[in-house]
């Protein structure tokens, strides 16, 4: 029972991280119909930058803010340089391009920093709490994960629901042509969407990296899980990203805890397949007919 409780708590913490990755994918998908397979790799590069900043002797929080800023900048540059030219072409082009960019970034990281593993510090203790006499595997760091991802979600919610800018972004995502006709400048908003998505990815990476380790491909599997979560929740629903993240995190934690950790990626595949068979558009997607 205690084992079950512990892996469940771990699953919730991981699920929140996965939800942040999924949120990044969803933000981009609902605005541009592109799944950004390079998102994990972009966050990985930014994490290396944060690592370098951290080793200048600055505080964890300063490095975190720098990393988020770098993420915002990186996301907008990528949208501006790589995505704009192919936006109206076949979706296959965009998939191949982001996939190519993923491996390009991993190669660059490998060429600069090598494949040696580095450790990235956590701001809080990663060791579980004592609750009475029993050890509970829920550390202060897990609380930090929970709080920061919920804060990210909250900021996004306020941005999209309560500000004029958010309203315009939703209009662009919903009907770009109509939004353009109503005087919304579409391209800058798409760039902003990519920037926010990249920042969400960076936050996820910085939450993962203390418990895994910093290598050029440490985000590969996390990206897969994020994609799984986004598919489960619906690729165009931010709420779906959160719920999908939790579902994915918990299922993987249970599979990993009871059957073996190496089965987790295949469990993600199974989850994607089952979810697509039962509810292809995801749990929270807006009902959409495919245009003929």
């Amino acid at each position: 029972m205690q084992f079950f409780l512990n892996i469940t708590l771990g699953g919730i913490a991981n699920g929140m991280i996965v939800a942040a990755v999924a949120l990044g994918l969803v933000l981009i998908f609902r605005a541009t119909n592109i799944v950004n397979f390079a998102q994990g790799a972009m966050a990985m590069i930014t994490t290396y930058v944060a690592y370098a900043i951290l080793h200048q002797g600055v505080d964890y929080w300063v490095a975190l803010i720098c990393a988020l800023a770098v993420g915002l900048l990186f996301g907008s540059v990528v949208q501006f340089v790589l995505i704009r030219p192919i936006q109206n072409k076949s979706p296959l082009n965009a998939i191949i391009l982001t996939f190519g960019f993923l491996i390009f970034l991993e190669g660059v990281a490998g060429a600069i920093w090598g494949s040696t593993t580095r450790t990235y510090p956590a701001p809080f203790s990663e060791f579980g709490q004592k609750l009475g006499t029993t050890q509970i595997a829920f550390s202060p760091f897990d609380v930090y994960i929970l709080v920061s991802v919920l804060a990210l979600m909250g900021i996004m919610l306020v941005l999209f629901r309560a500000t004029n800018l958010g309203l315009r972004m939703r209009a662009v995502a919903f009907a770009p042509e109509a939004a353009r006709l109503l005087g919304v400048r579409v391209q800058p908003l798409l760039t902003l969407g990519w920037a926010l998505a990249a920042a969400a990815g960076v936050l996820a990476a910085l939450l993962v990296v203390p418990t895994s380790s910093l290598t050029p491909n440490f985000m590969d599997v996390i990206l897969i899980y994020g994609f799984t979560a986004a598919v489960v929740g619906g690729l165009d629903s931010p709420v779906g990203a959160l719920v999908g993240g939790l579902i994915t995190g918990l299922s993987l934690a249970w599979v990993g805890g009871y059957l073996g950790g190496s089965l987790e990626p295949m469990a993600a595949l199974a989850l994607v397949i089952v979810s697509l068979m039962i509810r292809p558009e995801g749990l929270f997607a807006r009902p959409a007919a495919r245009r003929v």
Partner: protein
Amino acid sequence: MNAVKRPVQALAAKSWFRWPRQPMLRHGLFALLAGVGFYFLTNWLSAFNDYEVGQIAFYAIALAGVTLLTGITGQISLGNGGFMAVGAFTLALLYTHTTWNLVPELAVVIVVSALAGAVIGFPATRLRGPYLAGMTLTVAVGLPYLTNQYESIFGGDQGLPTPPPTGPSNVNPEQWLAWIQLLCALIVLVLLGNLLRSRFGRSFRAVRDDEIAASLAGINVSRTKVIAFMVSAACAGLAGGLLALSAGVTNSAEFPLALSIYLLAGVVLGGTGSLMGVWWGAIVVVYLPSEWAMDLASDFHANSLVSANLAIIIFGLVLVVMMLVAPSGIQGGIRWVVRRLAAYFSSDPVTNMSLPLQELNGPGIGKPTENGGGPVAAAEKQGV
């Protein structure tokens, strides 16, 4: 379609030589010539070069599988590296547990990989674009983990032995292996060439171009996609088995995510819709990581980290740049040149029109958008 002549025929019409009109005969004759050419090539080359020619052969098979699925049926697959792993491990298990010879082993490899393709293909029939890409990416990333989970079966990090077959004593082993791999490649390409000229081939293209139109024309879209997945996975599995023979051992480290990217880059480079393009792609996939990237790195006195990663950097760049600049690949460029030559020597006003690259290649990866395309593409779509 009739208005634009095929370039080979347009050239041949001027000369004494005419390729047979029957696809089977034409492809068979072509393969026979290629086979004779390869025989002399392998005799002339050193043992190590023979080994590389064999590698080109099995990568050509794998690339043909990706071409069929992605370029011709329009179903993006980032997971064919995973299917190669399925083929390789099937061969390794057969070698460990049976005493069969290579031919039935490879037959089983093909069947098992085709079944794996069907398992992935069935859910995939309900998916489009990014969903499909993500699912196949999960296959590529996740499958190697399975071999770590069941170490007692798959041998863990050590892997399982898959020694190359021993040939006649007067042929050196590398050459014998290269012959086997080349023979497989030629057979596979002839069969695929015929498949693409058959009803199935037309269904594949119809599904790629417009699923709804295809289903209105009586094509069972789901079945067509599953068949494409199975054929593609069978090609990948056979290629994986032949890769295992070249490597001598089979372990999950030989099937990293980078392999799937090599395959995609090879197909994009060769030209997404073209079977002949797979040879260009295969040459790049074999030589770029092992030689060209190393040479380039040493030319620039780069350190070992850079030279170890240069290949995947270049492949990534290739994918990005090709998508931005030239989505029809090397073979697309060659076809364009041949067509322009044919048009130059011909007085046919239709072939003489200056046509943009993409329209000549048909709607492939670089498929023009709905409202783009121009008159000839539109005429092709209407079957004029």
